[in-house]
């Protein structure tokens, strides 16, 4: 695997982790409110 390909893979992995964090916040806040009486 070339350095460039390795860099690309690291970039995509980090982006996916951050996207998952954002999705967790989104669904987390809705779910907490569903529990709270929605």
């Amino acid at each position: 695997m070339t350095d460039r390909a390795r860099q690309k893979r690291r970039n995509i992995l980090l982006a996916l982790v951050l996207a998952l964090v954002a999705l967790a916040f989104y669904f987390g806040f809705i779910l907490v409110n569903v529990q709270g009486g929605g």
Partner: protein
Amino acid sequence: MSTATATHEEHHDHGPAKGLMRWITTTNHKDIGTLYLLFALTMFMLGGAMALVIRAELFQPGLQLVDPQFFNSMTTVHALVMIFGAVMPAFTGLANWLVPMMIGAPDMALPRLNNFSFWILPFGFTLLLSTFFMEGGGPAAGWTIYPPLSLQMGEGFPFMIFAIHLLGISSIMGAINVVVTILNMRAPGMTLMKMPLFVWTWLITAYLLIATMPVLAGAVTMLLTDKFAATSFFSAAGGGDPVMYQHIFWFFGHPEVYILILPAFGVISAIVPTFARKPLFGYSSMVYATASIAFLSFIVWAHHMFTVGMPVVGELFFMYATMMIAVPTGVKVFNWVSTMWRGSMTFETPMLFAIGFIFMFTIGGFSGLMLAIAPADFQYHDTYFVVAHFHYVLVTGAVYSIMAAAYYWLPKWTGHMYDEKLGKIHFWVSTISVNVLFFPQHSRSAASCSASRNCCSSISSTRPSRVARRPPTRSGKARPGSNSNSCPRRRRTTASTRLRRSSR
């Protein structure tokens, strides 16, 4: 062989696409930065036109230039356009142009995502602005879109919600790109503590965006299901709680304030040392101050809603936590001043805007401290004092830093030097105008004027304030100030003002 090469070149046009397709398909960070900046300028003009409608309507009590519903739409969409359409895209444009160059990266980490992040924006705003042409008109419940008022909006409601989702997705994707670029693409030797402060402030801003934009998206999704899917998240009639919406909104809304101002701090930290001809004073303290502000921004949200009736312990916590933000912010202001101290200063246009920023943002900061005092906030809440405060931090703060950045980096972007004389005229006309416009708004609260109407205060009329709730005296007479008719300005209102008030 030569024939084969000629054929190859005839069939393939190496290099960027030409014409419109260049801008639609570009993955170049500079092109995308330019697109963001031009989009922000367009939205700035649009939001400014809406502000003109607002000021024209308020030019004199009783004027009725526009329909009351349209007036409320103007205040609402002016805010949404300026926040999500002007200031945020302008800073994203600056990040696109500057971050890769400042850290020695060839481009942003995810160029196609970068292109997609930008091109969502025009569609999002088209969706938002299209609501003006729908039954019921545009959004008119304020940029906070508090229920139950916001749920009374007409057919444009789901379009506005979807537009906010699109703008949020765009911001999150842009933020992810910035974080990945800064963490993974720095040139060898460029350690985190060697990065320019603009890069640091954008890294922290990007984390704030990733953490808070989904919260806004969640809140508006719940509004959507309350309206169309028979849920009762925020409906008291169904067991929900409208105040919960305010808590969720401001959990996003307060960090959003810092999303709008932290990159400005980075810009000023780049410009002041250049024109003072000294290195920035206290680099590492600037980094830690930025991180502290970002952390504190998550634990102060309820200072926007002191008047909803929180426990006193809650009010005290949010009051003291808010006041603590003054410490790292003060560190920054003192560092900029210390950088200028005994420097060989010159006052070109970017430096004028930077000094204007430091001076007038500090005024906005101090009025913010005044608002942080819970008992005082009961009087300031929903008055023009708040409007004066946030326009000082956002116009003479965020917008001034964008102007400073544009003048500072324009020669680098375009290869052309701007006209210094015109730049200075721009600065002085802006500075005089914004102060004539916004400074008197501080005292409009002393005259008890609500933020959203040109009549007597909600404190003395519509909102059941502490004064209004006081029982009558023993003789049965109302206490001074407890009757809405005690406001002398109220008696002077015209029939058209009363009509407008009743229609709200």
